[in-house]
């Protein structure tokens, strides 16, 4: 069966860096990464730190060029991916000199939308992002969870179809984190943007995603891809206590542990 055109696809993606002084040859950060993400899919990548996730995201965001292989956006190889894909790094990176509202319009403003129109469009989204009433305060005055939602709204409003979210909830406390996961699922279900999500947390990946890639490092590659297939809409208590959830978790943990051990062995 011919698959419909993937929204985002990588073929044999490779990235090498010059080796540190003394050693000859090059350091391989990514080797033959193959990935396919369909329109509207929610896909996660889990892997130990240093497995090359950041390198992969930099390539996908267009901040860096691959050494080999290619990236296809909607079936076409992109000349430059810069500005094609929404990118949200782990730190919220809100500008302290802009109000929350003015922070969220950054992407619109940079693409030439007038300040007034941009603010109007952003204002409409504030209730849905749980930011109503905080339009005109400084980012330093709101909580970490709210700052992440503001950063996410900034990414949403930039209007890209694919969004890379790099551990967006990594710095939040457990409770806030769960709230944010449920909230993100709701937003995703309403908008059906394509999301590629990076996390350390297997449960987070399973709860949110349609598919989960397990990544191992040095050189970075995908070890495994698991279809989650848990029914949607998902609810935290019901979904995470289902027996299928536990089964999937077991399936992921073993390869992840191996990848992690390999990473540590090489550190030693």
């Amino acid at each position, binding site marked *: 069966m011919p698959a419909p055109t993937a929204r985002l696809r990588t073929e044999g993606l490779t990235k090498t860096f010059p080796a540190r002084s003394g050693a000859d040859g090059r350091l391989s950060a990514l080797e033959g990464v193959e990935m396919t993400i369909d329109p509207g899919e929610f896909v996660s990548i889990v892997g130990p730190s240093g497995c090359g996730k950041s390198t992969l995201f930099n390539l996908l965001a*267009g901040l860096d060029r691959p050494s080999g292989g290619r990236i296809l956006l909607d079936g076409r190889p992109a000349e430059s991916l810069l*500005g094609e894909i929404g990118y949200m790094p782990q*730190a919220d990176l809100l500008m302290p000199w802009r109000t929350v509202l003015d922070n969220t319009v*950054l992407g619109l*403003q*940079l693409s030439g939308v007038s300040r007034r129109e941009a603010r109007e469009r952003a204002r409409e989204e504030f209730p849905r992002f749980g930011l109503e009433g905080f339009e005109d305060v400084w*980012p*330093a*005055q709101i909580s970490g969870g709210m700052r992440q939602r503001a950063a996410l709204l900034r990414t949403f409003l930039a209007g890209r179809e694919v969004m890379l979210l790099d551990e967006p909830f990594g710095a939040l406390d457990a409770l806030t984190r769960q709230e944010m996961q449920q909230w993100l699922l709701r937003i995703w279900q309403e908008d059906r943007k394509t999301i590629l999500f990076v996390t350390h947390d297997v449960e987070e990946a399973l709860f949110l995603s349609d598919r989960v890639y397990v990544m191992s490092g040095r050189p970075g590659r995908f070890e495994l891809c698991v279809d989650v297939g848990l029914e949607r809409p998902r609810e935290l208590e019901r979904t995470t206590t289902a027996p299928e959830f536990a089964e999937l978790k077991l399936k992921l943990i073993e390869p992840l542990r191996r990848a992690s051990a390999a990473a540590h062995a090489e550190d030693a």
Partner: protein
Amino acid sequence: MGNGRRRLGLESRAARIAAPAIFAVLVLAVWQLYTVVSDVPESSLPSPTEIARAGWDNRQLLLDNMWITIEEILIGFAAAIVLGVVLAMLIRSSRTVERALYPWLVVSQMVPVPAVAPIFVIWTGFDLRPKIMVIALVAFFPIAVNTIDGLRAADPQLLRLMRTLKASRWQRFRYAQLPAALPFVFSGLKVAAALSVIGAVFGEWVGASEGLGYLILVLNNATDTATMFATIFLLALIGIALFGLVMLLERLLLPWYHEARKETNDDGVAEPPPDAVEIGARL
């Protein structure tokens, strides 16, 4: 909650004004007492009341000369700002320019300004110009150095994020690097404000026929120590006013910076270098 917080804010503001005021009164009282108890002559150390009286009696003389010095300071300070900011942007614009200029920027501060001031007088004569040049020469440096640091202060991650949003180099400067630099620029301005007054006095000492610095020389020759002290206070007052003006501007232009500093500082707001703040606060 909000009310209590506001009251607390008022209290601390009152304390901030009252504490130094009480201290000043205390110092003046001890000073006055000392001049009465000891038999120090008025020509070496006049008492505060004698200084006040001398200042009042010579108010016309002092005011006339004050306006001249204020004019020098304002023009010189403005020149220092232009020179400092332009130089900083030039230095940050390219690696080569930075390498070529930065060492000379530092060397410019090794030159003893009172020693070069006479040269300015030879070049330009006895009018405003040599004073402005001296003020600009001593005051541009903290502005330039702080602005250079400020232009480096923008989070590199934020600049990368902006690239993924297709921001041009100009947009990255306009929306990220420039606003991130402003708090640094202002801490440079505060130091420069204090230095401008010093520069004006140097400038007038070398060659002038009017101004508060010149007046100090004249009063020194006449051993009118009380009026001399009054002149010094007036000079300090000008410095304080200029410093206050810079602080007011900072509050108006960077409201976010004050809010952020009030909150616990865990939000990555770049703090200006502490030495600059200290020098500024010493005024």
